[in-house]
């Protein structure tokens, strides 16, 4: 047991929808505070069982860039993405996101700046209603009920799911659940969005809608995917990851045209 923090931010009924408290000063609800950059240097990561998942990665991504991470299963893509949000910490090397080095001192802000959208929306959605789920992040951040309400509304509108607010996440289609999962992180106002296999399990229409949605986002975007057409359609830059290291980094069109490279890394 470490030091006990004082009880903070107790908002009775904080997560209750439609409790409009419009007396607060409006912030622009979805304007990120951070600068959206990512800088990774000499990143090494070893799992507790000894598996060396990342072996020295260097990477710089500018604000607003849209980058696809390509690579075979087990290449280290997911491990890398979990570093961006501080869920994994480097064994060696550093990770900077939105101008902050990921550490115990910054972890609370890092999680607000970097939104992780997991592959299986069921891992992410656990509340009785869509509204409650989207309100989780803002409520945890201790925002006022009015601010929470605004954030949830704007985030749901951004993914076109405002009409689903009172539905149970479990009862939605896979495409709807994926959109709601995105809304749950959008509501935290991140400057960087990280997606794991966003097109997995979607039918062609769901996939087209996803691509349109991704194209409409202004945040820095990082996507791990096996879906090369998705990378081509929405991500100008691609990074090929294999065996815990970066194998190629360049314009998506050039990388996808290099058949030898794709074959060498299990992408074709």
């Amino acid at each position, binding site marked *: 047991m470490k030091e006990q923090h004082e009880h903070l931010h107790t908002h009775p009924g904080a997560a209750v929808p439609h409790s409009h408290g419009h007396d607060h000063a409006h912030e622009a609800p979805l304007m990120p505070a951070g600068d959206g950059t990512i800088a990774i240097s000499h990143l090494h990561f070893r799992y507790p069982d000894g598996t060396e998942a990342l072996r020295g990665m260097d990477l710089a991504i500018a604000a607003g860039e849209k980058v696809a991470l390509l690579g075979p299963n087990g290449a280290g893509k997911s491990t890398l993405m979990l570093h961006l949000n501080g*869920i994994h910490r480097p064994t060696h090397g550093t990770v900077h996101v939105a101008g902050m080095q990921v550490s115990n001192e*910054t972890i*609370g802000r890092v*999680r607000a700046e970097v939104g992780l959208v997991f592959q299986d929306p069921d891992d*992410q959605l656990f509340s009785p209603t869509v509204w409650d789920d989207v309100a989780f992040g803002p409520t945890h951040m*201790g925002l006022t009920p009015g601010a929470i309400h605004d954030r949830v509304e704007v985030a749901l509108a951004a993914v076109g799911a405002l009409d689903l607010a009172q539905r149970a996440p479990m009862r939605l289609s896979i495409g709807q659940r994926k959109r709601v999962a995105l809304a749950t992180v959008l509501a935290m106002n991140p400057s960087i969005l990280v997606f794991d296999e966003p097109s997995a399990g979607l039918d062609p229409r769901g996939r087209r809608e996803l691509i349109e949605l991704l194209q409409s986002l202004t945040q820095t975007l990082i996507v791990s995917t096996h879906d090369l057409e998705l990378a081509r359609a929405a991500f100008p830059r691609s990074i090929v990851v294999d065996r815990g290291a970066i194998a190629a980094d360049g314009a998506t069109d050039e990388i996808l045209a290099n058949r030898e490279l794709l074959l060498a890394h299990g992408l074709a």
Partner: protein
Amino acid sequence: MIADPRSIGRDARAAVVTTIAFVTAVALLPPGSYLALILAWLLLAFAGALLGIGPGHLARRGLVALPFVVAAVPIVFLRSDELLWAGTIGPLSLQVSGAGLRIALTALMKAWISVQASVLLLALASPPSIVTALRRMRLPAVIATSAGLTIRYLEILRDEARRMLRARTARSASPVGDGRERIGGTISWRARTTGSLVGSLFLRAYSRAQRVEDAAASRGATGSLSIGTMPAADSRLTLKVFGVLLLVLIITLSGALLPRL
């Protein structure tokens, strides 16, 4: 935790009986039988070495039971026989009882040794083969089937729980301008969140159970699952049971004959 694949499908009754007998013999040793306990541990370490498990590794695995010693701490200070020390520390007047200390230390050693015995059992027999062995030893079918399926789906559901926790952590940010990790919301909101996670996992487990049932039904199962074919009975079981009795005898006699402290 996962045993040698060769051991799957072997009759694990001898291993189960040996472990239970060993743990019982150790439990029967009177307080202060440190020498007998050391002898029991040496037997265990020898068996471990035969199975390719080093004594250091085994000893470390045994440490998991140690936190429970908190339960035996009061007895050290509250008995007043064989006082080793009495005095005051600040406002507290304290006494250390030799008898109490002996009880606590003995319990600790027994716990440490018994944990290592079950570590060896797992090295010797896979969890499903242990369930089969218990089934042979008259464990009711409902319990055996249920235990077998629990073991089968344990890691899958723990993995789901882990991913759900990770997704919650990823969204657990601090207020703007605050760097360190903090926990937000009211206590009852956090309890509701945790309860919702539990409820979600239940619904996922429930629909998995229905899929398992459908799959079983589509292969012609009705109602309950059969345990599968039992491995051939261990032909030397009687001999092994005599070996076990010998083991118990050695430990018990060493407890009676070796000096106690």
